């Protein structure tokens, strides 16, 4: 399969996100990237597409639901969030959405910091195969993968996409 052009994908994501912010009259949002790929994408949107900074991040290692199967993530980086997110509009950014479990974990973590007014979900790529009911509000491209394929984002700069064949579960 051919991978989508990274530049065009980022542009689409930025356009859709700006449209969403405008349509929903979101003012002064807090931008949060999900470690690690989501942070790269968010930084790129701030640098190249005037998304408002500063950039915050969540590391979902302690919130994953597959601890019994996969154990602790060996690369814990910690989260960096403002003192309070109470009543604020958040823009949550990830690189790839598939099962939706990462987004579930990230939202759970965010709620431990307060009750945001809203959360907008922006993902560079949507590869389907959802197991939980989460849909991005803005998305750079949608594509269908073979059962044994995974798509990865390489970064932080420049961003690029590559395919990985794996026989591990999603």
């Amino acid at each position, binding site marked *: 399969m051919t991978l989508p052009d990274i530049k065009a994908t980022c542009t689409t994501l930025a356009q859709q996100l700006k449209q969403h912010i405008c349509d929903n009259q979101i003012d002064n949002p807090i931008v949060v990237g999900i470690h690690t790929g989501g942070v790269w994408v968010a930084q790129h949107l701030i640098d190249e597409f005037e998304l408002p900074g500063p950039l915050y991040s969540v*590391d*979902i*290692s*302690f*919130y*994953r639901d*597959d*601890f*019994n*199967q*996969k*154990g*602790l*993530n*060996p690369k*814990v*980086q*910690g*989260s*960096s969030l403002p003192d309070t997110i109470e009543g604020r509009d958040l823009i949550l950014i*990830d690189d*790839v*959405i*598939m*099962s939706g*479990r*990462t987004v579930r974990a990230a939202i*759970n*973590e965010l709620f*431990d*910091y307060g009750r945001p007014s809203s959360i907008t979900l922006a993902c560079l790529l949507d*590869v389907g195969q959802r197991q939980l009911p989460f849909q991005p509000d803005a998305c750079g491209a949608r594509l269908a993968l073979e059962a044994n394929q*995974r798509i990865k984002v390489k970064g932080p700069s420049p961003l690029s996409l590559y395919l990985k064949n*794996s026989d*591990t579960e*999603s």
Partner: protein
Amino acid sequence: MMSDPSQLQLAPNGELRHFLTTEGLSKELLESILTKASGFLDSKGDLIAKVPLLRGKSVVNLFFENSTRTRSTFELAATRLSADILNLDIQRSATSKGETLMDTLWNLEAMHADMFVVRHADSGAAHFIAEHVTPNVAIINAGDGRHAHPTQAMLDMLTIQRHKQGIEGKVVAIVGDILHSRVARSQIHALKTLGAAEVRVVGPATLLPKDIEDLGAKAYYDFSLALRDCDVVIMLRLQKERMQNALLPSESEFFRLYGLTSEKLALAKPDAIVMHPGPINRGVEIESAVADGPQSVILKQVGYGIAVRMAVMAMAMSGQRTNQAGPEAPQ
């Protein structure tokens, strides 16, 4: 004969599955404990909110020897990981009724405990339990005899890392009753592995074990000399009962020679930090002006202790899981 503890505490894939001692663990693994512990702290060094990581797991605090403080920090750590915690007053229950240690353990295992946090007056107790416990139950050593107190040592490493920007190249003095201190032993192993330039152990000859230099530390009887160029000064608690065993002339004599005062501290580097595992004996091993002074990080250590215990508990539980396939993040 007991198996090699450094092997016993590792899973076949190299992950930590028990935490019994800092001895023999790789630099990479000790650093990984510090990294994960830092993940439980925010940018200001405070603990983050409770996380759901060990939800549904049961942790049993098995303290055969009293220690309210250590037990409480393990309890807080387990609670913040969302595990269920059971404090067993083991001194007053099973063992006093004549039940053997293994019978007690098998009973607790039958209650589906996932982890035992063990404090025992005998050296090697945690190790013995780890050897005999059912697979998939993790053992954390919360202090065994004179042997080891690895979580205390690792919280001290985290304190040095955060307040001195790393451990590599640092000169560290450990002062006081080295002979009876399981903390000192665990600290020396961890400091040497993590690349400290020099580890000095300081105290009267009666309280410095003869073989201590075999661990890679340098023995000093003169406190003033030992303080020179120090980045970190770790004071140990002087247990009053040592006085009765004639190992020391008197408290005041000990304080005169080995007590940390502002004048003495001035001999170390100007930005040196002062640490103490607590509880402190003011006027015996440390002066109040130093304990409460700007170079003291004693109270900071307590919070770091919870983060380190959270990290070790999460890692050991992770190392015990049946499916040992490498973790890969979901998307």
